[in-house]
């Protein structure tokens, strides 16, 4: 995916207004005419999910315009590291990459940010502003006559017991392609002893791998997949609500919860305006906007409501495991560790070697 740079509508209108009206009102150039501060926001979040929030911020801060640039998570990190002119604000769902940017000392502290859970902020430089569970999306018709898996162990067992039903009809992230997919897989590996077994069973079922949640949800809806494992709950839920063919489920052993996070760069030349954006995201108004007019889940509201916030939105009851915005995430960014993990994961997802496969049908 290439970087698409877009100036937010409000900013463009303001610029047009300035160009068209100012010369009419005053003859000649007025250097001290009030100018709107423009802050650069580089983000790895669907533009559609952010549009209302950005508009809300510009309405609340008429003096500030946002120049919004969208990337995918891995590109975003490379772009920020390589950029000579750093953006003012970086927003990403890849918590590990955000922690890495902060750990490199690229972020600047922001003061007076509203209180949020301790795991969702680090060093007063990196702030999570959503709380989004990682979920399982399934095709309702496919599971109309069979029970849904309730745990990862059960899921692995089902795939093993009914290879014909699941064969080529299970989807998950391609962890080599997707930053968040890698983060979910590594967190699974770190937390659950079932993880290797589950990936191995995906391999046996010749699981399909995807770059993005939306593609997976699309294929589940069309019936090409019976289920997709580790999808971003917020994106998926939006589709699930509109599409009766889809169901969404939190497995009961645990559900990972990640947070989209925002930081102000050290090189930002307008830290005050950038800080205003961060404070807005976590203010009551900002959080209400996230809740009402975007597919994302607000952090503060879901934090206040606790478990029930998700139980009213997803099937299944579970214990939520937030991924902490802490340097321990850096472990999985280690080149050797990553290479080794990807190597093992690819070996598992490809399925067993040939002679193994020949042996497999005999079992069933």
């Amino acid at each position, binding site marked *: 995916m290439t970087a698409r740079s877009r100036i937010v509508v409000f900013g463009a209108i303001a610029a047009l207004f300035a160009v068209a009206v100012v010369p009419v009102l005053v003859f000649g150039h007025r250097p001290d005419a009030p100018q709107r501060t423009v802050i650069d926001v580089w983000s790895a979040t669907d533009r559609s999910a952010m549009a209302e929030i950005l508009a809300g911020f510009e309405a609340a801060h008429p003096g500030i315009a946002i120049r919004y640039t969208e990337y995918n998570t891995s590109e975003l990190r490379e772009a920020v590291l390589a950029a000579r002119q750093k953006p003012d604000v970086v927003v990403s769902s890849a918590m590990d990459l955000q922690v890495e940017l*902060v*750990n*490199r*000392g690229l972020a600047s502290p922001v003061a007076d940010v509203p209180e949020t859970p*301790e795991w969702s902020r*680090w*060093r*007063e430089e990196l702030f999570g502003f959503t709380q989004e569970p990682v979920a399982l999306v399934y095709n309702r018709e496919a599971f109309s006559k069979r029970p849904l898996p309730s745990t990862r162990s059960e899921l692995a067992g089902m795939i093993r017991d009914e290879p014909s039903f699941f064969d080529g009809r299970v989807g998950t992230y391609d962890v080599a392609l997707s930053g968040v997919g890698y983060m979910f897989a590594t967190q699974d590996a*770190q937390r659950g002893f079932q993880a290797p077994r589950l990936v191995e069973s995906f391999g046996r079922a010749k699981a399909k791998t995807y770059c993005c949640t939306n593609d997976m949800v699309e294929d589940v809806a069309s019936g090409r997949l019976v289920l997709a494992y580790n999808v971003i709950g917020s994106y998926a839920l939006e589709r699930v609500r509109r599409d009766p063919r889809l169901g969404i489920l939190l497995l009961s052993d645990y559900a990972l919860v990640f947070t989209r996070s925002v930081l102000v760069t050290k090189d930002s030349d307008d830290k005050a305006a950038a800080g205003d954006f961060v404070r807005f995201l976590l203010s009551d108004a900002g959080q209400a906007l996230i809740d009402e007019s975007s597919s994302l889940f607000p952090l503060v509201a879901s934090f206040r409501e606790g478990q029930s916030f998700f139980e009213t939105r997803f099937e299944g009851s579970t214990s939520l495991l937030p991924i*902490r915005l*802490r*340097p*321990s995430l*850096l*472990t*999985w960014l*280690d*080149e*050797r*560790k990553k290479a*080794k993990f990807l190597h093992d994961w690819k070996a598992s997802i490809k399925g067993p070697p040939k002679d193994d496969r020949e042996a497999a049908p005999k079992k069933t």
Partner: protein
Amino acid sequence: MSRARVLAGTSAVGSERRPYSLRRRLMAASMAAFAVLIALLSAGLWTYARSSANQTYDLLLRGAAIAILERIAVTPEGIDIDLPPSALEILALDQEDRVFYRVVDARGTTLTGTPDLPTEGFFERSLPLQEPIFFDSLYSGETVRFVVNGRTLLSADRPQWIGVQIGQTRIARNAMEADLILKGLVPLAALSIAGVAMARAGIGFAMRPLAGIERDIRERQPNDLEPLGTAPPREVESLITAINGFMRRLDVSRGQAESFIADVAHQMRTSLAALYGHLEAADRPGEAGSRAVARARDQARRTVRLTNQLLSHAMVIHRADKEMFQTTDLGELVRRLMEEIVRDDAAGGIDFAVEMPPPPIAPRVTGDPIAIREALRNLVDNAVRHGPPDNQITLRVTATTLAGRPAYAIGVEDCGPGIAPADKPKVVERFYSSGPGGGSGVGLAIVAAVAESHKGRFDLSDRQPNGLSATITLPETPPPGPVSMP
């Protein structure tokens, strides 16, 4: 009169400069002591806080290094490094600190992690194997605490050192350090404030007896010279004793001064009444009148002499008060006196002699030369007046001892009638005059006063076959102690 001036002098000196305050001195000293104490304790506290914060968090760094080293293994494909999540988890326990790590081989090649971590030259020293190296270094805009530890990998061909370097910013350490210092300093400061307050109260309590003494003295009537009644604390006991002694002497000398003035008044009145009587009689015609005139002249001369001597007496006493002592050459003094007497001598028939101690003895005393000269002058005058016209008067200076101290005796010997033994104690009293042609009765009193003010003595003895020896003995240096009032 002279004493009154002395008292006025002391009080004048007292009011000139603002006196220092013992309370303030004690407070300043105790506060300075507390300040020094706190400074020392704070320095100690700071060192302690820094080392314990380092120790605590160094353990975490060390543990993380062990966790990483443990997961490094040699496989057929090469060195396998499986970074355990727990290693960075340990360092990220609810802290704001950033962490950096890398795995290096003996040549300093980074196998994984951040390659540009500072080495502070540890590769040049012996590489750590079991005992880790810790150092602080500036990295990524902050002071970072680094640990380096290593182990030997036993591979197929040869053993190989492999090391791990982990860095953690100092935020948690500094917070713990500040916390420890604060927790130490708060009680310390409270203790100091309490200490100063208690010192202040204690000083006030200790000073209270002094205030009592001060009030006792302040509230006295001017003529009340009774000793102080308060039982003084040990520290000022000698001061109180001295004050009481001083007051006692003041009392005695005031009594003496009163009687002196009464005596002087009586003498002057008697003398002037006699003169008046003679002058009344001088109106008579004939020989009786001229006899009365002669007697009046004689009486006037005696009154003048009496007046001079009284003034001389008062001066000698006044000088003794003023402590005008200096090194006085007795030989020189006696010679000059003798020259003066010979020049003034009306009789002309008297034979004067001076005997000095043989050289190298140089008779010198610490004393008031004018008072000594006055005393000798009186002795010589007495000798002249009471002796026959062909008198032989000898001034003799001899080295002697007085109460175990070196001293000089100055004797004036004559061939006069001497003093009857019963009269000897009386003649040194004022206005006691004996014999015909007796003087004012002040001369020997002056000599006695001078001897006393020099802590010396005055002796009268008879000579054989006749004559008087009057000897004033002066110590070379007066012994310490208050000069007694004559």
